[in-house]
């Protein structure tokens, strides 16, 4: 079974966000970058499956040159090949544009399973997975926390509000990982050394036949016109806790009479 894993190189989840000078994107100067945590679950599952069933794992990203660091991490963990669609110098591309670029890169590659995280942390739009599945005419299962392989098919447990849906799909298919699917491994020293020698295939949008000007900046289907920090909250009202019973009663009274949420 052959696997393709699409991943995003994103600001570390612990990073403090600062607004950039243009007022519509983040200031990237002090940002530490990581492979999006959900994509790590996707990668881990692909590598695990390759180890038991054979085949290869190819990682694909759309990002600037610094994303090569993330791709090498994936190679060190056990991916066989890496492809980067160069985003250097491009204006913001929205999910629809990214889906078009990824679809164009993936179309000529043979695979049984296409893996993604259920969202990139950052834009948090959660729109890429179904869009990419549509462009590649694939069935997809989103938010997968568990799966069982069958002959030419897979059964997935998908997280929904207060329940799990059990979904069966034939292969090839797109599967999007949710936290809980597995525990991603660390790279071994041997893996890190081997990854250093590998070549990352870099393709430009033009190589893929995608007119990136038509899907980015003020031509994107969805544009960010402003980015701001969330509004500051009022100072906390502290309730003395000398007597827990009294404190609890006072808190509930405030929630009912002042905040009006009970």
């Amino acid at each position, binding site marked *: 079974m052959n696997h393709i894993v699409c991943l995003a190189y994103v600001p570390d989840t612990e990073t403090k966000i600062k607004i950039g000078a243009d007022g519509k994107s983040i200031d990237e100067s002090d940002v530490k970058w990581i492979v999006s945590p959900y994509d790590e679950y996707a990668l881990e599952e692909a590598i695990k499956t390759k180890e038991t069933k054979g085949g290869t794992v190819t990682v694909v990203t759309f990002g600037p040159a610094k994303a090569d660091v993330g791709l090498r991490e994936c190679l060190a963990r056990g991916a066989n090949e890496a492809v980067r669609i160069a985003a250097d110098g491009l204006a913001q591309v929205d999910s629809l544009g990214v889906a078009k670029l990824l679809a164009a890169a993936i179309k000529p590659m043979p695979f049984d399973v296409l893996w993604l995280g259920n969202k990139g942390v950052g834009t*948090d739009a959660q729109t890429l997975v179904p869009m990419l599945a549509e462009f590649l005419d694939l069935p997809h299962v989103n938010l997968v926390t568990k799966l069982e392989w069958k002959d030419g098919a897979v059964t997935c447990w998908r997280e*929904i509000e207060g329940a*799990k849906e059990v979904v069966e799909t034939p292969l090839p298919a797109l599967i999007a990982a949710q936290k809980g699917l597995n525990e991603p491994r660390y790279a071994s020293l041997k893996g890190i050394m081997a990854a250093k020698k590998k070549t990352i295939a870099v393709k430009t949008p033009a190589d893929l036949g995608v007119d990136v000007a038509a899907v980015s900046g003020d031509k994107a289907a969805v544009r960010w016109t402003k980015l701001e920090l*969330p509004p500051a*909250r009022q100072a906390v009202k502290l309730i003395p806790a000398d007597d827990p019973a009294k404190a609890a009663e006072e808190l509930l009274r405030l929630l009912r009479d002042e905040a009006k949420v009970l």
Partner: protein
Amino acid sequence: MSNILVFVEQREGKVRKAALESLTLGRALAARTGGTVAAVVAGSGISGLAGELAAYGAAKVFVADAPELALYSCEGYTAALDAAASAFSPSIVLVPGSMMGKDVAPRFAARRGVGVLSDVMTLEVENGRLVGTRPVYSGKARATVSADPAAALQIATPRPNVFPASKADAPAAGEAVPLALAGLKIRAKVTKIEAAETGEIDVAEADKIVSGGRGIKGPENWPMLKALCHELGAALGASRAAVDAGWISHSHQVGQTGKVVSPSLYIACGISGAIQHMAGMGSSKVIVAINKDPEAPMFKVATYGIVGDMFQIVPAMTEAAKKMKA
């Protein structure tokens, strides 16, 4: 005139609250644009839902009623939305930002070659285009996003629990229009649904959340928080620390790598307030912090705070809530 089509999520024949919120929002937008509102619903044995949707302002209700649509499939439900959009020619499509809606809307959008204003917390029509605001970087920042004004179709998924749901002053016509889905291709199929613990409210759609973190000390202490949840009608949430310690399943996790929530009341018990947790609950209307450590960052975002031992305060709150109801 700009007509508005709303995708209605139903499960087991019941319309989900998030869908009624989207219908109410659709009605408000239509009042400004001068268009009419239609709804589309997919399922099996669901034609009886038209009346309820009319009460919320749907002049037309497109119904895709077929045995193979009884359980959700992205391909099947997207086909229903696509067929209704072809019949109604809306300029705006609203799809509730639930797990189902966030699965259907992008597939439909890609089919039509347009984008999705995802997870919006405000939504307006400005000069003929949809403009919304949405939390990004898990709520650490807020982006104003707008659709391409030249797009034939503009799509948004409003975040559940943010927009109110209310009936129209007078019910709309609610004319039921059956949809025949020719050549339906469903590859990924739901075969069954495994429910979580009975009576549990999911944090993603809860109006009130009581959350526990490292301070809960171990899984044996969840019943204490669950008792408070029960009295307040709240969902049980957890911090990443509690989930990563293996004390509770990830479906309860609130934060950047969990769920991003906006309830009217969020009670954080023994949660210090790591940046990644705050990102997930910072937009809650009222926040209560209960923590032994007066320096806990949670007090910086809290509306109300009690510096004290949660093992004393939480049971006292449960008792106080019982008294208040009595």
